[in-house]
């Protein structure tokens, strides 16, 4: 029922009420019940008596219209909540969760109501003092906050001119975009991607930039974006919260964990600190910072010692039966056995026939083969006999190092607890792991993830209802992505078809070679990556401003035999990693992120990267630190002021929209409109300046005076086309049940009906049924489709030269290097409950529920030893730098640990220096590996990430503060 109709009927009834006193009131309710539909119950109890003081409050609870919306911000694991936005007198009064998700599986709790306190106050955020209302141009020193208000035309004209200069003089590699973490599936994402594509200007790959790239998952299962649904945990009888703090970072999801516990699941939280997620656990296992790999390996050893491993699962799904040459330490490949043999075909020893068997790379079905897991075998090769042994045997030998006593010495976990947990995991009907993106950010995080996967895999706890691990959860509308890159001379639909035709011969070739659809998607993504559409961020920062920090690995890591730069040069020379542009960086377009907040060592960029730019341009609705330091800031429309659609995750498998409840505040515009106007202005200025062409990065000439025509499909889209674009996008979308934009806007969300084929979706490798929870990776465990790794199995043995050089062929624990110097405290991090990145970090009401300014957490003993009292101003320092903040003393923090919640803006600190100033974040050379089927750069993964966790620091009280 449209709201205006409801209102009209109500007004009629209201007239009756005036005439009829109490009779009128009951009439009014009658009419309302009729108008609102039969499933709405009449109010309980007697009708309100409309007189006196109570009416003052009743009068506040009125509104003019309701619109469906959400918040396009990357809250990731918890993202996707349906909200009703209430408008009164032309402004947004408040928002409240719709709470209308239909039950899926009748035996499990439903998804209602979702939401969190951040989403619940965006109506205040959008009108607060930090909101950017007009285009502004810097007139003071950078970062000072002195601006001149300019018109959109004036501002865009200068930005367009500088971009044209850069394109013509230094080429498209000198203009870089950051789409940030706020990217959407509609106008924002499509606009930015298409704008960058048309200009051949690269985008930063934000995912490895921020350390959400899950290098251990990539190395082990060949992909990162897989996850089940949150309600699938209701089928678990053991849940490990390990490497995340879902009570902080999955507020709308967390009820499923507590409800699973009431349903009989045993919840174990493993973390150094007594986190909010430990509060409701059945067991909390405190572990020393950075030792999670050793903990997992200790349990793996117990499982093998006690014979608790799931041998059938291991034999079928993993590389543990694959044979390795004892002489070289390399897998025994077909190329070892015969002239011209493939180097990606592998072997097992069949105990039935007592002979060597080549693995089927097209299927995991073993047929009648019974692979040996132990023993040594002799194989004849053209070069003579070689001895081979299964990976499992090597693993078993390797695990001998992880006896309970050593593991306790490393991790602090007692032998009894270790063994009890190992047995629980091995014997659980369905064990699931709530792991988030914390380990990605450790220097040896790759190993922590590998070891966790090994533990779960040995027990067969993968790809069954209620079991499994969460990788990088992601799910998006699919089928429309080509709009960003297709030829503007055709309609988006025809463009998609043309691209499909173009890719078909290669896809067929791969298919013939035994690739699954999943692998083909990754091959195409790798190709796009190689073409330079995305820049691996940390390699970009290594080149443009942070080389001395990111490249300092050998200074801290005692296991490195050579400098990181040597690894890097080798990786570039062999084409293992993509080299960033060499041209001077001239224009940087920040259109959804905040590089001068999120980049570890960001403060170095003021003097290097930013200094050399012609222009730093930001589009945002709030004043980020990047905006504050920009030359131009353009006002973006708020989330209740525009139409768009967001991506999701399988955890909450619903596509949500934002829709326009009120017009954009001040002169703000949608993200789509910004990109469209920028391209339009570039075209116009190119014509006015008589510049016809520019040369793209492939050396081909492109028309500059037609970039907007190309961008807008020759008149199909302009800056006002948000709705048309969304209509087209949904027409092309294949995994949302055919819902159109208008219907979606009315409902606010729709449940996904499938994955279709797309980079992030396909990795979930599962079907989505309307009445069932989602379990990831069942295509592998049930349909026996190969895993997208080199060996086509869950791969624990990596015989890549860099892994072998570092002695990490098998999952291994390595002590964290003393990054930052010889200091006693280990600074860890994590996301707070109080903000999504920096988007709510400076919101007055949320700050009032904290301490109003940045804090760092310290254990009571560590504080006492240093004479630090709760609330004291302290200086945190190491060999890299220092910063000042307020100390907060937590009894639940591990002694020696210092916990820094992320995303405070640097301008919230004295001297503008935040915790990111002390992080060196060196690159681990393993993350430069490439040329190894599943270890090759592609968007989201297989490029180097940061390593800020476990940075060594010391802290002291600031005297006189």
């Amino acid at each position, binding site marked *: 029922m449209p709201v205006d109709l409801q209102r009209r009927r109500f007004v009629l009834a209201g007239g009756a009420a005036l005439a009829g006193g109490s009779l009128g009131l009951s009439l009014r309710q009658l009419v309302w019940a009729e108008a609102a539909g039969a499933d709405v119950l009449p109010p309980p109890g007697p009708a309100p008596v409309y007189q006196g003081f109570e009416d003052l409050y009743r009068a506040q609870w009125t509104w003019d219209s309701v619109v469906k919306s959400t918040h396009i911000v990357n809250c990731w694991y918890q993202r996707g909540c349906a909200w009703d936005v209430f408008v009164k007198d032309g402004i947004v009064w408040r928002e409240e*969760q719709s709470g209308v998700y239909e039950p899926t599986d009748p035996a499990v*709790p439903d998804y209602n109501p979702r939401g969190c*306190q951040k989403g619940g106050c965006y109506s205040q955020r959008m009108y607060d003092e930090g909101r950017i209302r007009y285009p502004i141009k810097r007139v003071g020193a950078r970062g000072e906050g002195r601006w001149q208000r300019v018109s959109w035309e004036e501002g865009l004209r200068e930005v367009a001119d500088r971009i044209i200069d850069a394109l013509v003089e230094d080429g498209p590699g000198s203009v870089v975009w950051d789409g940030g973490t706020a990217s959407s599936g509609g106008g924002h994402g499509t606009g930015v991607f298409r704008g960058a594509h048309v200009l051949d200007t690269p985008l930063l790959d934000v995912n490895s930039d921020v350390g959400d790239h899950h290098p251990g998952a990539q190395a082990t299962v060949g992909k990162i974006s897989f996850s089940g649904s949150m309600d699938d945990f209701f089928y678990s009888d053991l849940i490990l919260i390990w490497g995340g703090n879902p009570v902080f970072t999955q507020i709308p999801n967390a009820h499923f964990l507590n409800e699973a516990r009431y349903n009989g699941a045993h919840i174990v939280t493993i973390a150094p600190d007594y986190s909010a997620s430990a509060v409701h656990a059945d067991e909390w296992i405190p572990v020393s910072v950075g030792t999670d790999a050793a903990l997992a390996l200790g349990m793996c050893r117990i499982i093998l010692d006690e014979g608790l491993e799931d041998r059938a699962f291991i034999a079928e799904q993993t590389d543990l039966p694959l044979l390795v040459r004892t002489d070289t330490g390399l897998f025994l490949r077909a190329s070892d056995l015969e002239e011209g043999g493939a180097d990606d075909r592998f072997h097992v020893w069949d105990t039935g026939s007592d002979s060597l068997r080549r693995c089927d790379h097209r299927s995991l079905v073993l047929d009648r083969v019974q692979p040996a897991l132990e023993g040594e075998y002799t194989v004849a090769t053209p070069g003579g006999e070689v001895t081979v042994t299964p990976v499992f045997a090597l693993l078993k030998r390797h695990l001998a190092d992880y006896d309970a006593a050593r593991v306790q010495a490393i991790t602090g976990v007692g032998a009894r607890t270790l063994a009890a947990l190992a047995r629980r995991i091995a014997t659980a009907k369905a064990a699931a792991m709530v792991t988030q993106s914390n380990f990605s950010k450790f220097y040896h995080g790759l190993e922590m993830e590998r070891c966790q996967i090994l533990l779960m895999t040995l027990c067969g706890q993968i790809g069954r209802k209620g079991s499994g691990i969460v990788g990088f959860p992601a799910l998006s509308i699919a089928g429309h992505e080509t709009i960003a890159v297709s030829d503007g001379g055709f309609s988006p639909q025809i463009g998609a078809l043309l691209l499909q035709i173009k890719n078909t011969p290669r896809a067929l070739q791969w298919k013939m070679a035994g690739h699954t659809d999943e692998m083909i998607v990754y091959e195409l993504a790798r190709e796009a990556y190689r073409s330079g559409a995305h820049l691996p961020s940390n390699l970009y920062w290594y080149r443009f401003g942070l080389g001395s920090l990111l490249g300092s690995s050998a200074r801290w890591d005692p296991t490195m035999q050579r400098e990181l730069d040597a690894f890097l040069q080798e990786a570039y020379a062999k084409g293992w990693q993509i080299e960033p542009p060499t041209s001077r960086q001239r224009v940087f377009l920040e259109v959804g992120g905040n590089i001068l907040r999120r980049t570890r060592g960001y403060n170095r960029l003021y003097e290097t990267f930013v200094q050399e730019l012609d222009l730093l341009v930001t589009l945002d609705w709030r004043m980020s630190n990047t905006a504050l330091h920009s030359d131009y800031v353009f006002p973006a429309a708020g989330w209740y002021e525009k139409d768009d659609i967001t991506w999701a995750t399988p955890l909450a498998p619903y596509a949500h929209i934002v829709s326009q409840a009120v017009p954009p505040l001040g002169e703000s515009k949608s993200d789509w409109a910004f990109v469209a106007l920028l391209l339009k202005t570039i075209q116009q200025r190119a014509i006015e300046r008589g510049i016809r062409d520019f040369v793209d990065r492939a050396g081909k000439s492109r028309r500059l005076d037609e970039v907007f025509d190309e961008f807008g499909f020759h008149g199909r889209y302009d800056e006002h086309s948000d709705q048309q674009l969304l209509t087209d996008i949904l027409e092309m979308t294949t995994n949302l049940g055919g819902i159109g934009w208008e219907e979606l806007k009315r409902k606010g969300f729709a449940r996904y009906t499938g994955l279709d084929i797309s980079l992030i979706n396909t990795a979930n490798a599962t079907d989505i049924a309307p009445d069932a929870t989602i379990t990831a990776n069942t295509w592998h465990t049930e349909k026996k489709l190969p895993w997208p790794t080199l060996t086509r199995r869950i791969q624990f043995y990596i015989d890549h030269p860099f892994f072998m050089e570092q002695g990490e062929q098998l999952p291994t624990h390595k002590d964290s290097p003393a990054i930052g110097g010889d200091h006693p405290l280990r600074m860890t991090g994590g996301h707070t409950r109080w903000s999504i990145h920096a988007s709510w970090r400076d919101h007055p009401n949320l700050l009032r529920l904290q301490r109003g300014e940045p804090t760092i957490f310290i254990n009571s003993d560590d504080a006492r030893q240093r004479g630090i009292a709760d609330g004291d101003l302290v200086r945190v320092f190491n060999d890299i730098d220092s910063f000042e903040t307020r100390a907060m003393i937590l009894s639940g923090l591990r002694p020696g640990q210092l916990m820094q919640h992320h995303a405070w803006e640097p301008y919230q600190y004295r001297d503008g220096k935040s915790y990111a100033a002390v992080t060196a974040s060196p690159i681990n050379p393993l993350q430069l590996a490439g040329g190894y089927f599943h270890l090759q750069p592609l968007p989201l993964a297989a490029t180097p990430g940061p390593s800020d966790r476990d940075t060594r620091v010391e802290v002291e009280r600031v005297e006189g503060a």
Partner: protein
Amino acid sequence: MSEASLTGREVNGGIVKPKRQLAMVFDLNKCLGCHTCAIACKTQWTSREGMEGQWWAVVNTMPGQGTPRGWEQMGGGFDAAGEARPGLIPVREEHGEAWQFNHAQMFFGGEGKHSHLQPVTARERPPAWGPNWDEDQGDGTYPNSWHFYLPRICNHCTHPACLEACPRGAIYKREQDGIVLIDETRCRGYRMCMEACPYKRIYFNHVRQIGQKCIFCFPRVEAGVAPACARQCPGRLRFVGYLDDEAGPIHQLVHRFRVALPLHEEYGTQPNVYYVPPLSPPRIDADGNAIEGSRRIPTEYLRSLFGAGVDEALATLEREMAHRRAGGKSELLDTLIVYRWPEGMFPDFPNGPADVPGGFHAR
């Protein structure tokens, strides 16, 4: 409502009860400490002038000083003989005031490099307390540290000390649902209610010079919509209903299963918010092993909050959970799980505000 209403007052040694009483049960084993309740209430009711520092719904980390600071030591309520206990009136600093920030100067006033974004109190000092100042700080010695979250609102007591204390008769308890309200048109700001309330859930509006507190979202309740703090709670832990509804979750949890207990019953006001007490992970010995069967939250502490009934409530929860793990059925756990929202949480309040015409209460 009538000035002469006796509902909620002691008359001849008995308390005059309303026809029905609305109540809430908060399941502390589901509370995330996320403060969505606090923000839901803030955006709904307390953004107007003089209300900036009011948080009708708060979440306190326990053990802790809470909101206002040290409220458990501020007195009020009634003693065992039913006599009013003396109390303190919390001041603005104890509640935690609405600090101001220098966004405008930093972002647009040229101060960006010369200062930093910071809070300042009305006395132009850095803040020393706030409504959630001791969040997650807890107690105990690592690794046997412990804390939990305690959401609090006005208890809409059966015998409200605030009501009895108001010399203006400005506080009343609604006949139809037992909601306790301060009539802002009668209130003259004497603050005796703030002194009398043992839970210290009444704020003083320094601009309008009146007392203000949680209204149990009565305009929503009248439209069949649950209070904002409850309906917006993503942890699904705030059950709402009438105490006399024997089929409803409130009656079941309070009276049938006896796992939901009042907070500080000894304060004597007969509160109508009940709590399912928190379980906690076992303590850890010197060798880093869990001590099976131990609770890290001292039961004695829980007794001090929820009374002697806490032992039985915890034992019931532990017994039912063990039974469930062994494959058994449990009506209690099914009630706490809440398979279907909103029916399972607030069966009498199934509407969302968007189901209600925006002019439902317009006159």
